[in-house]
Each structure stands twice: as structure tokens, then as C-alpha cells.
């Protein structure tokens, strides 16, 4: 935070305008939706209605403002904590709930843990759990876009811990060498499960790690939606004008646990959490809207009700959707099932119906 406040960076961010003022209510609405969705999903996991959840609380501004700076034709290579990006891309809430439940409506066909969604229609590539693997994919896709002369950028999301992974370095190196139109968007949320940022690397910033690869690095205050938007817009136009990749380090804070399997009280202090909670990015944008007269407390309460109803309706629909067809286990291993997979499918069939003894 102090680094961002001091404007320390390896490449300048133009002091251009922030978010388009007319978009602010919609941006706030999306950030709030992400926050309320997050709260709901944490409680659904505790009730056993979804198996697992990875919250994003504290990272709403970084994500929503970043995605706001992209175009629908850009390709997103997310990690598993990118709800704010998914919402801006237009992935419907029911699609998300279908995935969290793994029902027959899930476009991933019940194959993945919650949060690992992806939607080709939204150019939001399906995530995996190993950290950093997606980084180099974004570079490869950008090389393909260069070859097709498509005026798009690819953007990849990851956290502070991932900057220690092999693929982070391979990805930055390839992007530097091939000068790809790629944005590396690092959400430094200060904690990689229990490992604090300062134990992850002795590097002064994460952004500076781009320098040796010839990739400009930028540090921004990720709690400030305007700053994030500006940095991403600038990186995007640089990429499109042939200026190559950019590494953006958005300094944020993971207000919640790493996942529903994590208890942050084991490794961080209440005082630290309170300090960051005071900088809550959702409250910050709300304050701006209130001060400018675009939002009242009453409006805000009404908006929250509206969003909770929207979430509830999507959840209800997803919970009433049928279970995934058991025999789809064998699909999509290959484009066409091999004889071996066909045989295994027949082996499972007698045990696959509810009540057959093989079904959970």
C-alpha cells in the first residue's frame, strides 16, 4: 500500500481519467454483487449445499475495475478467485451456481470443484487448481492472436504466491521475447494461504520482477477502482499499439480465508485484518457515490435487497436443476470416446442409477 501511495513503479501510469463517471453506479453494483454473492456462497458451503468455496472479499475493486477496462473480445485466463472478473464478463449467476453444485446445467458437466468455472462464450478460459499454469497459456494465445492479426489482448490473473512458480517466470520470459499483447494481472493480496508476502520473496515489489524480462511492471493500489482501471487501460493500449506486455501488481488484501478449508486466525492478527477492513474497496466506492450525490443509504439498502433477491433466484433455479448424468463421466476425455472408454461406460452403467448401490 505504501509503495502504491508513493507511486513506486518501473513504468509510468499516465495520469489519465479514472473510470467513466456514468459507469460508476454499474461498477458499484457489480462490486456489491460480488460481495453479496461471496457472503452467500460462504454460508452455502457451511450449510453443505456447495462443497467448497474460494472467496474474493477485498479484491472486488481490483477485479471489477480491471475487467471494466477490457473488451469482450479480449481473452481472460483466470485463476480460481476471479468472481469479479466473471461477473463483468457477463457470466450469469445461474451458470456460476450450476458449476458450484455440479448439476446437469453446469457447462463443465460437474467435472470441477467450485470456483474453477470457465465459459468460452465469455472468453473466460476454464481455470485449474495448480497455480500459475494459466500464465503461459495467456502468452501462447497472444502469440496466436498476433499470428491472426486479431486486435485483442490476453490477460491472466494470479496472486502474490504464484510469482514464485516456474510458470510465472516462463510466461514473463516468453512474453518479453515475443513481445506479446498480454497483461499479467497480479493481485497481491498479501497472503498465500499462511505465507505472508514478505516471506514469498525478498523482492521489493512483485511488479519489479517484470523488469529483467523486459516487461514493464506497475504497482497500483488495488483498493482504488480508478487506479486499477487506469493501469489496465494503459497496459491494454500499449499492448494493442505493439508496445508488448505489462505486469500489473494490484495491492489488495484477502479479507476472508484462502478458501472454506482455511482459518486465517491461525496466521494473521485481528489488528492487521481491521486495518485493511478500514480500507474496504466496496465501502470506498460507495463513499464516493454518496459524496457525489449518486447514492443514498436508502438506495444502497434497496440495491442490496435487489441483489440478494437476484442471487436467491439464481440459486433456487440451480438447486432445482437435475443432477448431472452419471454416464457423462466418460465424455470429453477425447473428442470421441475410445472403445476402452465405451467399455468402462458399460461397466458403470448398472451401478449408475440412483438406488443401484453404486450411486452416492
Amino acid at each position, binding site marked *: 500500500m505504501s509503495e502504491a501511495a508513493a507511486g513506486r513503479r518501473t513504468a509510468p501510469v499516465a495520469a489519465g481519467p479514472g473510470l467513466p463517471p456514468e459507469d460508476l453506479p454499474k461498477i458499484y453494483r457489480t462490486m456489491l454483487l460480488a460481495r453479496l454473492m461471496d457472503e452467500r456462497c460462504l454460508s452455502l458451503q457451511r450449510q453443505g449445499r456447495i462443497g467448497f468455496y474460494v472467496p474474493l472479499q477485498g479484491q472486488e475493486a481490483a477485479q471489477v475495475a480491471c475487467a471494466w477496462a477490457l473488451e469482450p473480445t479480449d481473452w481472460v485466463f483466470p485463476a480460481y478467485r476471479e468472481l469479479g472478473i466473471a461477473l463483468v464478463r457477463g457470466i450469469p449467476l445461474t451458470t456460476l451456481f450450476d458449476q458450484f453444485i455440479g448439476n446437469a446445467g453446469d457447462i463443465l458437466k460437474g467435472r470441477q470443484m467450485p470456483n474453477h468455472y470457465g465459459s468460452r462464450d465469455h472468453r473466460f478460459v476454464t481455470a485449474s487448481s495448480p497455480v500459475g*499454469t494459466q500464465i503461459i497459456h495467456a502468452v501462447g494465445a497472444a502469440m496466436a492472436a498476433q499470428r491472426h492479426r486479431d486486435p485483442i489482448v490476453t490477460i491472466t490473473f494470479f496472486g502474490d504466491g504464484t510469482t514464485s512458480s516456474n510458470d510465472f517466470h*516462463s510466461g514473463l520470459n516468453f512474453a518479453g521475447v515475443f513481445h506479446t499483447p498480454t497483461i499479467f494481472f497480479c493481485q497481491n493480496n498479501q497472503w498465500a494461504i499462511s505465507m505472508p508476502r514478505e516471506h514469498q520473496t525478498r523482492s521489493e515489489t512483485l511488479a519489479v520482477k517484470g523488469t529483467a524480462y523486459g516487461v514493464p511492471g506497475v504497482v497500483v493500489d488495488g483498493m482504488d477502482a480508478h487506479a486499477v482501471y487506469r493501469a489496465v487501460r494503459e497496459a491494454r493500449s500499449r499492448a494493442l499499439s505493439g508496445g508488448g506486455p505489462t505486469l500489473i501488481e494490484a495491492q489488495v488484501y484477502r479479507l476472508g480465508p484462502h478458501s472454506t478449508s482455511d482459518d486465517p486466525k491461525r496466521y494473521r492478527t485481528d489488528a492487521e485484518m481491521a486495518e485493511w477492513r478500514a480500507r474496504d474497496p466496496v465501502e470506498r466506492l460507495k463513499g464516493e457515490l454518496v459524496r457525489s450525490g449518486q447514492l443514498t443509504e436508502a438506495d444502497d439498502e434497496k440495491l442490496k435487497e435487489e441483489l440478494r433477491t437476484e442471487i436467491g433466484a439464481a440459486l433456487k433455479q440451480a438447486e432445482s436443476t437435475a443432477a448431472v448424468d452419471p454416464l457423462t463421466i466418460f465424455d470429453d476425455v477425447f*473428442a470421441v470416446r475410445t472403445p476402452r472408454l465405451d467399455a468402462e461406460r458399460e461397466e458403470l452403467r448398472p451401478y449408475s442409477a440412483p438406488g443401484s448401490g453404486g450411486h452416492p
Partner: protein
Amino acid sequence: MTEITLVQAVNQALAEAMRADPDVLVLGEDVGVNGGVFRATEGLFKEFGADRVVDTPLSETGIVGAAIGMALYGLKPVAEIQFVDFIYPAFDQIVSELAKFRYRSGGQYPCPVVLRSPYGGGIKGGLYHSQSPEAYFAHTSGLKVVVPSNPADAKGLLTTAIFDPDPVIFLEPKRIYRSVTGEVPAGEHRVPLGVAATVRPGTDVSVFAYGAMIPTVLEAAASLEGEGVRTEVIDLRSLVPLDEEAILASVRKTGRAVIVHEAPRFVGFGAEIAAILAEKALYSLKAPVKRITGFDTPFPYALENLYLPSPARVAGAIRDTAKEG
């Protein structure tokens, strides 16, 4: 028809696929200006340029990961891993990403990447230029694994692999890159994946092998002719998908099976063939199944010719198996 080497056949398949489809491209270490350390990509840089014959930094993770990104976007990348012994840094990309993309996305993101790589011993390459890691990849659901044994198959299987909608690990037997020549059909030539070839018909013993072991097995089989042992040799050609029907049909005829590969025996690909025979052809067997393979040691440098199955060792196993029962 002209006689060319196996590595020339690989080159021909690449060049013709690139001429046929502008979305096919090649990437890897030293594949461009240098034409590849084994010359598999010779001439491609000159014909297709740096855009489509991409010299990459020295990072297998980067090569495979970038190829995945290209394939997601719609290209058909053919990545070269200079020696398969160096593929392990990319293991995560191959196992966690390449193999699973189609499945984990519910079919939204096919990943048609071909990873070509020279494998196997017999070139004085020691531990790190000789390995046969096919079992790792065959064990990973979502990957196809192909191993040609002659120039015509190398061209036909590679062409099919490039236009296949799924990821293919294409292992090239470098020991016979140049020592084996053969006629190769001119123009587009495709050999389907999952169809084994009977390279020598016989009635007494079935031998199942692939890649660089085929010439070794054929030599062993020929050496037993004088003893009246009629050996059938099946070249599996593709390990995934596997032509189980061809394996079973041969054993139902001969009742005897010998499996040959260079990789270590324990949990090697031969174990799967033996298991298939135990499950589906036990009552056709007149003798125990034998495996002649590399030993359960790292690959030795000075003693590689003892480590690798030799014609004599294979012939011994065939002879013993023919006498049993």
C-alpha cells in the same frame, strides 16, 4: 515412392501439413534457423518463416504452455521437445493442463497440440538422452501416445496426429532416425491412430512391440526361422488408443505372447498388455506371458547394449515361450 529415412519422413509430414493448413505451426528449441538438432525441421524456417517456425527460449514449460495457449486460440501447434528426457519440467503442463483441458471445460476447450520428441536408447546418450517415458503419458487420461517404427508410419501417424482434435505425444525412435529407410507415399498420407500393424505374420508366438524395438524384434524373429519357430510381430504404433482387438486376435491364434519395450519393466507399458491378456485371453494362452524390456535401473551409459533388449535376448524369450506348454 522414394526411399527416405524416418527423420526425413517426419520432416515431410510437417512441411506438407504446414502447406495444407496455415494454422499449423512448429515451435521449440533450435527448430528454426538450425532446423532442429536432429534436422527434423530442416528447411521449414526458410519456407514458412519465423512466424510459423518459432525458435523458443530454453524452457520446456514455456514451449508446452505456449503451445496450449495457441491451441486454445485455434492454432494447431506442433512443439518439439529436443530430447524426451527434458520433458519433465513440462510435466505439470502436460498432465494438469494439456490432458485435462477438454474434460475440465466440459468440452469447451479442445487442446489439439502435438508434442514431438525423440526417445529411446542406443545412441550413447546415457541417462539423460535415452529414456522411454511412454508409460507416464499413457497412464494420463486425455493424452494420445503414438510411436512410429518406420518412415511411412512416421509420416502417416504424424499427419494424423497434427489434424487430430486431441493432444498427442508423438515419440520418435531416434536410434533409427537414419538407420531405417523405407518407401513413403508422396503427398498427404495418413495412418489412423489406434490401429496396430502386423509387420510379420506367424502362427507360433506373438510379439508385441513398438518404435525402435521393431527392427530388433524382426531380426530376432528371422533368426528363429531355421528352428521352425514362426513368429508373428505386431507393431502397436499407437499406445493410446490401443488396438486391443489386434492383440487379442493374435494371441487367440498363437496362444503365446512376448512383449518387448525399452522402458523399465516394472509398471511399464508391457504390464498393461499382459493385464489385457490375463483379463481377456487367459484361456487362449498356452504359455506364461514374457516381457523383454529395459531393466529396472536408470538408463546406463557404458552398458546400454546390455540394458536394451537385443535380438539375442528377444530370440531367447521367443524360443522359450514357443517350447512351453
